[in-house]
């Protein structure tokens, strides 16, 4: 079965179309650049039909893990777009939370619901937007209900994910000051704020209980 529409048969028969397809496959696979139709035809045995072989090959790779794609005027194999994720390797790096972030998180956990202004008041320094964003992204904190005070400031509370990560049933399971002190994490001297209790509004009511003995 030769492919020759000329009246004069060629000196050498061109290979069968299936064989031409194999050749195109091998050439495109090994090529360091996409190959145009003309260049492809030049490399195939005389009398081959590069365009048809290419079209057969393109159809063969339809739906496969690699596709035959046209790049400008040239052709190349490329990873199927839906499998692009396989060509990415995610490396995960464990890093400790920054001091600002862990302190902010601790304040939210112990005092929730707590406003940003209150966090700043407690830490004594401004809380950067980035710190809050980071904790939000980690899904360890979320917005709580707004405070019923002038300006209706938003509050922050810890999330289920936070409790999961730290192995807590609820934020109330956080060790209280007494326990922190017993664990040697606090000075023996009672903290200056510990005796102020006349000012309990609903802001701190929840967490104050934690520290009552």
């Amino acid at each position, binding site marked *: 079965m030769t492919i020759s529409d000329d009246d004069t048969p060629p000196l050498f028969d061109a290979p069968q179309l299936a064989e031409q397809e194999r050749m195109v496959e091998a050439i495109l696979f090994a090529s360091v650049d996409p190959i145009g139709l003309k260049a492809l035809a030049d490399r195939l045995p005389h009398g081959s039909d590069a365009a048809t072989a290419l079209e057969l090959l393109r159809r063969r790779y339809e739906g496969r893990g690699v596709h035959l794609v046209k790049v400008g005027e040239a052709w190349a*194999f490329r*990873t199927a777009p839906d499998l692009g994720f396989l060509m990415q390797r995610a490396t995960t*790096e464990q890093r400790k939370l920054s001091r600002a972030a862990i*302190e902010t998180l601790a304040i939210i956990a112990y005092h929730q619901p707590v406003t940003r202004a209150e966090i700043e008041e407690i*830490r004594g320094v401004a809380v950067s937007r980035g710190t809050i964003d980071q904790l939000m992204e*980690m899904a360890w904190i979320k917005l709580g209900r707004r405070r019923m005070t002038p300006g209706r400031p938003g509050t922050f509370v810890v999330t289920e994910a936070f409790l999961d990560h*730290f192995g807590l049933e609820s934020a109330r399971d*956080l060790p209280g000051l007494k326990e922190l002190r017993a664990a040697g994490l606090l000075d023996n001297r009672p903290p200056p704020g510990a005796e102020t209790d006349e*000012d309990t509004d609903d802001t701190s009511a929840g967490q104050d209980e934690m520290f009552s003995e």
Partner: protein
Amino acid sequence: MADDDWTTDLRLSPAERLEAEALIVDVTGYEGPLDLLLALARTQKVDLRRVSVLQLAEQYLIFVERARLLRLELAADYLVMAAWLAYLKSRLLLPPEPGEDGPTAEELADHLAYQLERLAAMRRAAAELMARDQKGRDFFVRGLPEGVSVTRRTVFDATLLDLMRAYARIRTKDEFRPFSLDRDSIYTMEQALGRMRELIGFSGDWADLTSFLPKGWDTTPARRRSATAAHFAAVLELAKSGHVALRQGGLFEAIEVRRREGTP
């Protein structure tokens, strides 16, 4: 090239002798005595297993002799091999001496044949290996590899202990004030000073210090204490700078304050 020059016992046909001599030309082309022996053995035109080691020894010795006559420098290992082969030849020709231990001449000869066969086999294997399809010559790798892009993701971690430590750190800060309302009970001296500076201008006569306290600061003892202390400190400061005069009737009596004459 006088044939009668050498003393070796030759059992070679003239053709074999010629071939051995022809090999001389290539003396630098051999990779050692074993290579030369293999070339000589091939001239016997038999399977290497059936090669006559005695004949081979003679071929080799002829070769070495010819090289000597031609004043060709042979490397030491060629001469070592020659000495060994001369020894082997004599052993092969003479009946074994009684009581002789160690390997027999036949064993030595067999091993030499084995070495030659093994070298030949390795050469064949090398040729077959190189004749295989080779990468970059007969088959090819992907020309346009698609590299794996590495995306770094950072996962922040903290333990419960980190959390507790952080909280403990905050709680033990000296300036720590846990609740914002706490601040509301404190009247600072700076506040009092500013306030007294304004108020004192309107007070020409002695007046009780407590009457200067701001509204709302007498509601709780804490607030009253804080405001009183702040205002007391403030008037002391003002007295020191000569803006006011102070007087007190006795211990625990009311402290009175008055603007000093002549001050702005």
